[in-house]
């Protein structure tokens, strides 16, 4: 994302976010008829705290601790040859084999769909899961690939110069979703 962004408005407060995550956890359990064979997989960076929160919520209601995977999609990006210096690779970790499991990919924001495309390719290199579902906290449109989420926290229509920023207590000190808007700078595009 080029340019400088400044906060414009708050889309979700901490209380709202907690309720939304609770509902998403319920939907995941409901659509799968329970928790049998489920594994949550968070996409780095902010998909990981979302997956942790969903797992905690499911553990509270279902009294089952779901396995929690972490996926780093850097090596599967389609823009590595164009973005300049390579992004830092932090690595993936899936605690159990994916064969015949239902995987729930978790990410904070669904935007172009390219991250999810990369995540699907990465997951399939670990084996053949039975189903892969997608859970996102915020869907803000502007899709560039035919990808949709199965479980969505909230949908927000944004303009080209706006982005959605999700913060989690575990990683950022507070739960919050904000809309950021690009501000004009003299120097033009700086990264």
């Amino acid at each position, binding site marked *: 994302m080029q340019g400088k962004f400044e906060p414009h408005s708050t889309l979700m407060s901490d209380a709202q976010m907690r309720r939304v995550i609770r509902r998403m956890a319920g939907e995941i359990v409901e659509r799968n008829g329970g928790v049998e064979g489920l594994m949550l997989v968070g996409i780095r960076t902010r998909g990981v705290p979302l997956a942790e929160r969903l797992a905690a919520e499911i553990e509270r209601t279902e009294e089952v601790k779901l396995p929690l995977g972490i996926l780093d999609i850097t*090596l599967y990006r389609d823009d*590595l040859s164009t973005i300049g*210096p*390579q992004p*830092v690779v*932090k*690595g993936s970790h899936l605690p159990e084999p994916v064969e015949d499991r239902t995987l729930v990919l978790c990410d904070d924001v669904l935007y172009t769909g390219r991250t999810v495309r990369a995540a699907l*390719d*990465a997951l399939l290199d670990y*084996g053949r899961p039975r189903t892969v579902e997608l859970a996102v906290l915020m869907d803000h449109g502007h899709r560039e690939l035919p990808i949709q989420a199965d479980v969505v926290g909230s949908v927000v229509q944004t303009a080209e110069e706006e982005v959605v920023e999700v913060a989690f207590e575990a990683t950022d000190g507070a739960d919050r979703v904000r809309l950021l808007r690009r501000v004009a700078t003299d120097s033009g595009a700086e990264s």
Partner: protein
Amino acid sequence: MSWARKDLLGIAELSPEEIGLILDTAESFREVAERPIKKVPTLRGRTVINLFFEASTRTRSSFEIAEKRLSADSMNFSASSSALVKGESLIDTAMNLQAMSPDLIVIRHGFPGAPHLLARHLPAGIINAGDGAHEHPTQALLDAATIRRHKGKIEGLKVSIIGDIEHSRVVRSNIHLLTKMGAEVTVAGPYTLMPPGIEALGARVSYSLDEALDGADVVMMLRIQLERQGRMRVPSVKEYFKLFGLQAQHLARANKDVIVMHPGPMNRGVEISSEVADGPYSVILEQVENGVAVRMAVLYLLSGAQGESR
């Protein structure tokens, strides 16, 4: 921090942060080797040429596996099977290779500075896989990766490198790397295999195996380059083993959780006994394993920096 260099020519010019970035990236790449499908699409469509003017099995196959696991297309040129034996100059060979538009060239050459020459003339990124007795940066990096995994850090460790110091590029790259990262390095070997002025690189010099082992956290044994011993720098292999060969009883002097390393290929019964090489302190095979991850990291980082400097 991000990687900005087009080439990896040596450790001497790297900052501790750059070394740390390579090691951290390598740590992430280790996981690829544990998957059912040991391949990621990261360097799809990139071409890497492995240009080996000196015999090498381990380093070349390690680079090759790293390239394949990153989905790069790789090609091997070795001195015995190409125009190199027909009198072509290094620059001409390189220009011809460049005409095939490789993204990266991995080069090993008997002359120090050969990779640097290529780096100046070619837009492709150059990786030094050993130039004479000068540097072998990916070996030092994989050694560091191995040390870090066992000790959790490099700073403050006592590292002793023992053997043929004069002919070793591994030792030069390792002294640079380990001192930059805050380790205390001792090199030891017979007078006849100790190059004058090596202490200028920041290492302490010793001529006694026992002294070098005292309190060491890491012991790196170097190969006695038997093929170079036409000049007979040691009276006999037997005598060398008696004076500088690492045997189990010597390790009592070292730190109790010492690790023993060797860049390979090993001469058992010359610089190291089988008992030590196969013993509980040996991490020699882990070095090989880390070699692939480190080379993947270097290929990955350099391939991102290329577009920038062109």
